[in-house]
Structure formats: C-alpha cells, structure tokens
C-alpha cells in the first residue's frame, strides 16, 4: 500500500468510507464523488476501484500515463460508459448517469480535445448547437447572439473578433475557448476538459489556462486531464494520479512537485517530493 501524499487502495476493496482518505477536500464542498468505480472491457480492466473527490470551485488535475484510464474515467462520469460497479455521488446523493444528456442535465459538461465544433457553423451556432433557442418555432438568432456575446465577455474571451465568424477561421486557442464557453453557458457545475491544451502554442495555452482559472473562481468544479505537468502546476488546485487503472495518489497540489508527480505517473509510487511520507510498501 502506498500512502503519500494521500493514498487510495490500489487493488484491495476500500474498507470504510473513502472520503476519509481524502482529507484535503474538507475545506470546500465536494461536488462529485466516485466510490469504487470499476470498468471492464471484457477481460481488460480499465478502471480498478477508483475513488475520487472533485470539489466545487477548484481545478482537479487528472494525470497519468497513456492508457492509465483517464479518458475511461471521465467517460464514466460523462455518461458515455456505464461503470461495471461503483457509485457516483453528486452533491452527496447517488446518481446513475446513463447518457451524455443525463450528465448534462446534472450540470456536467465535457470539453473534448477534438471533434467538438462544426467548422462550417459560426461561433453562435456552435455554442448553441443542440440547444437552440426558438421563438414561434423559429430560431431566435438575436437572443442567441446576445447570450453568446455575454458569455464570452463574462469569460473575458476577447480575441474572437466577431461571434458571427465561422469557427473554421479561428485559431486553436480561440476554438478551445469557444468549446469551453459552450460548456459553461449551460449553467454547468462540473466542467471536464480532456487535454484542452494539447495542440496549442504558448500564448493560446495561457489563454485557455486563464479561462480554466476563471471557471474555478466562479465556483465551478473543473476536472482537467493533461499530460503537461507545467500546465498542471500552473492551474490545478488538486492532483489525482492514475496508474494502470488505479487511482494511486491524490491531494492538494502543494503536496507534489514535478519529480514526485513524474514518479507517480511512471511507477505508480513515489518516495520523493514535497510530501515526506514514504510509501508503506
């Protein structure tokens, strides 16, 4: 068993309420709690008894190597995969999320790295896709445009010149900003971002990270998947590390440094870092 900075069980079933393991969350309210989430694809066990708490108003970074199970975990939250076993608690109550629509109704919005926007539609049309406002059964372009502008202004997205320009003409960072804005404009309480900065340059990354920070400061829970530890240390309040389907470590960002994070990611254990607690194993 490992216990630094905070451990959760790797292969053994959890004994006792897992919330106790994650004492760092207590300062703010836990919005989403996963208890013992397991997901098998046939013989492949992609998630092994994952416990995780995602507090409101904070950025939780989910890190781990390729194939660790990060995307599978967020898909279980977003209603794309049904977990094989385990519980999802939303504001302390158990919920069952069967479809992306149901996740959205709860207030969970997912921003995918790609495949999220229609290039041939403009910014407003993309932001309202699937949620168009109508008046007398006709699209209400004016109220949608006003609302889109307001959301972008609220999020300080100022680089988009016109909300009536086609998304195809936007830069990668602008596109990502639009995707994030689209997610938050529907009153989302949890925004999940899967590698939002993977394809971006320096200034555009900064733009998106700033946006993530803005979301958290508004009380929204953010779950951020990233392979870029520099980004994680800039923007995250909490870190959760996955290793081969296990959630091996989680805690406030202050408990980690780059070296210990790399250890956790590559070996599923760490003896170094800001936390002095050595693994028990």
């Amino acid at each position, binding site marked *: 068993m490992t216990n630094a900075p905070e451990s959760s069980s790797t292969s053994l079933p959890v004994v006792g309420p897992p919330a106790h393991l994650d004492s760092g969350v207590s300062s703010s309210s836990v919005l989403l709690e996963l208890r013992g989430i397991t997901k098998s694809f046939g013989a492949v066990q992609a998630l092994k008894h994952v416990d995780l708490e995602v507090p409101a108003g904070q950025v939780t970074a989910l890190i781990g190597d390729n194939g660790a199970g990060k995307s599978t975990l967020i898909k279980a939250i977003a209603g794309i995969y049904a977990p094989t076993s385990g519980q999802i608690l939303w504001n302390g109550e158990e919920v069952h999320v069967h479809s992306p629509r149901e996740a959205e109704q709860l207030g969970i919005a997912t921003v995918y790295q790609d*495949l999220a926007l*229609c*290039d*041939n539609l403009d910014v407003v049309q993309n932001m309202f896709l699937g*949620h168009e406002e109508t008046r007398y059964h006709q699209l209400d372009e004016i109220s949608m*445009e*006003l609302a889109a502008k*307001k959301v972008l202004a609220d999020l300080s997205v100022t680089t988009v010149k016109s909300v009536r320009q*086609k998304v195809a003409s936007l830069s990668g960072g602008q596109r990502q900003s639009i995707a994030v804005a689209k997610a938050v404009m529907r009153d989302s309480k949890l925004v999940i971002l899967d590698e939002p900065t993977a394809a971006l340059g320096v200034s555009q990354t900064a733009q998106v990270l700033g946006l993530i920070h803005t979301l958290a400061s508004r009380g929204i829970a953010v779950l951020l998947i990233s392979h870029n530890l520099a980004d994680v240390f800039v923007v995250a309040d909490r870190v959760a590390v996955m290793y081969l389907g296990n959630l091996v470590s989680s805690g406030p960002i202050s408990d980690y440094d780059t070296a210990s994070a790399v250890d956790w990611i590559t070996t599923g254990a760490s003896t170094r870092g800001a936390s002095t607690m050595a693994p028990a194993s």
Partner: protein
Amino acid sequence: MSSSPEINDVDSLVPHESPWQEVWAQLKGLRRGDSGMVPIVIGIVVLVAYFQIRNSLFLSAGNLVNLFVQATTFVLLGMAEIWLLLLGDIDLSVGYVSVLGGATAVILGDGQFHWPWFLTVLMAILVTTAIGALHGAITILLRVPSFIVTLAGLLAWEGVLIYVVDAQGTGGTISDSSEKVLYDLVNTNMSTLWTIIVLAASVIASSLVLLLRDRARRRNGLTVLPFVITGLKIAAMVIAGGILVSIFNTNRGVTFAGHQVTLEGMPWAILVDIVMLAGGTAFLSRTKAGRYLYAIGGNAEAARRAGVSVNRHRLLAFMLTGFTTGIAGLLYISRQGGVSDNVDSTLVLYAVAAAVIGGTSLFGGRGKIIHALIGGLIVAIIYNGMGLLSITASAEYIAIAVVLLAAVTVDSLARRGSEVSR
C-alpha cells in the same frame, strides 16, 4: 450606431469598422468562394452574350420563358440534391425516381383509375418520399455510402419505371394530356395581373425579411451590415422582378393559320419553384432541423455529442430529397406531355451540376437552396442555347461537363483554402 449602455459593453467585443471597410470585407468574402456569386454572374453574362450573338432569338421573350420552364426541372432536381449534399451524401437516382413519381401521377389520373388530380399528385410525392426514406434507411442501417445505395437505386428504379410504364400496354409511353391540371402546370400561364402580383409579392416579401432582420439586430445593439449592402440587394431584387414581369407579360404569341394567338403571363411551373425556394430556404435557415443538417455535414460527431440525433436527421434529409424529387418529376412529365419508358439518363447529372455550379459543396456542410436556382438556370442556359444553335447533344454534354468540372474545382479549392487558413 446607437445602443443602450449595457448592450454596448457586450458589443465592444466587435470592433466597429467604417461601413466601407465592411463593404470591402463583403466583396473579399464574395471572392473567397464563400458565396461565390461574382464568378457565377460573370459566367451567366458570358453565356448569355455568346448565345445572343450567335442567335438573336436567344433573348426573345418567347425563348426566355421557354428557358425558364426548362430550368424549373433542373432547379427542383438541384434542390433535391442539396438536402443530401449538405450532409456530404448524394442521391444518384433522382432522375429515374422523379420520373417514376410523375408516372405514378399520370397512371393514376388516367386510364382505368381516374383519380382526381390532387390525389395523384399526393400519391406521386408519397411514392418518391418513401423511396427517399428507403434509400436513407438502407444507408443508415447498413452503414453503406449513399452513392452506392442510390447507384443501385438508379438501376432498380429505372427497371421499375420501365416495368410500370410498359405494363399499361400503351407502347412504352403514356400521355398526360387527359389530366388537365398536371398538363397545365407547365403549359399554361397565369394572367398578366397575377404575374405582377406574384412577382411583386415575392420581391416585397424577401426585401421585408432583410429589412426586418436588420432592424431587429439594430434594436438589440448587434452589428448590422451597412445599409448599402441591403439596399443593393433589394435594388437587385426589384430590378430582377421588373425584368421578369416584362418578359413574362410580353405577348409571345404567334400568328397561326391567319389569326393571332395571345400567349402571355408566367407559367404556373415557375410559381412551384418560387414556393419551393422560399420554403426550403426558410427551413434551412430558420429551423432547428435545418441547422442540424448543416451541423451534421460539418462535423457529425460534434453534432452527436451536442445531442443532435444524427440518424433521424439523415433520414429526414433523404425524405426531403425524395419529396423534392417528386415535385420535380411532376414538372418534368408535364413538360414532356407524359411519361416514356425511355428517360433522359443525364437528368441526375444535371441535378448534381445545378447544385454544385450554384455553389453547394460536394463535401458537405456548405450550401443553400438558392444555389439550385442559380445553377439550374446556368444548366438551362447551356441546354437551351445549344438547342437553339442546333448544336449536337454530344457538344452539349461536353459543355455542361466542363462547367460542372469547373464548379467542382472551385468547390474543392475553396475547401482546401478553408483548411489551410486554420
């Protein structure tokens, strides 16, 4: 631009430019092929000038009305194609399906059945819509490319058409002359007064749509195109309407066997096209379903994740194609004076040509119903002009092929341009 203070704040996102800068941006946009009207207008002028120089009858009222009537079928078939082209799909069977629909109407209205005209028309459209639904269901359920399914359809429906027509025992052709309303669609005209009323109403309605939209946007503090642009558009529509009225209301009659025959007014078939243009445009630009057709054509996975039921809307597009094909078929058989088992196999190519020449993309996500009107008109100009010059069918095919190829090239360059610019 005046706007209330709190809206002004939001509006500051968009830098204000002088009207002329915006006019310039518009013109540049035109050149980028986004709504490449400029090359199209130039193309029309060149074609018309060529045919007029070669034969001074080309621009006579009689020939122009004939050209418009010929265009009605190409336009409707082009519209039928656009529903699917928007999704990146295609229907290769519209030619035979349209005639099969027409044959349904002719057979039910004639001979042993004697159905009233509105039931035969309804039945024809039901048949073609059902065929569209069948193509759609097969494409979606079997996950086969639509061009394969409709290529099979092209063969199968030709077979069905020949079988149905020959089964009537009238030697491979059925005349529609006994069905008055169907026959009249193309072959009779509305009165000169109604011609003026219909065209004026069309121009006024489209102008009002533009003006009201601008006014609503201005009231809400949103950016509005400079009035010059809207004014120019309205002026163009008024001029076009005026020219059309003068063409249609010229007496195209001839002195026949010693007495004067009056022939004036707009053929009813053109009203059908106007209604379909208005309806199709409103559907695509004003309804959720229309928006979703664009979204699916642009990025089906993004649409799916946004909660759009992709399969349902694809099926809808196939059915709209079938529906529009049916109406095209009614006009086609009306113009032909009936149905024959020997159908012009180039109809489907003209349909795709009309849509693509007008500016609709073969790659999905980009297109408008009005493209079929423009493209159909160009196809009809070539078709009519070459007929007038007694140029052989072989040359006509080659000419339309060249224009189609040019349009497809523009389309694919525009697409590549938009990919590079990212």
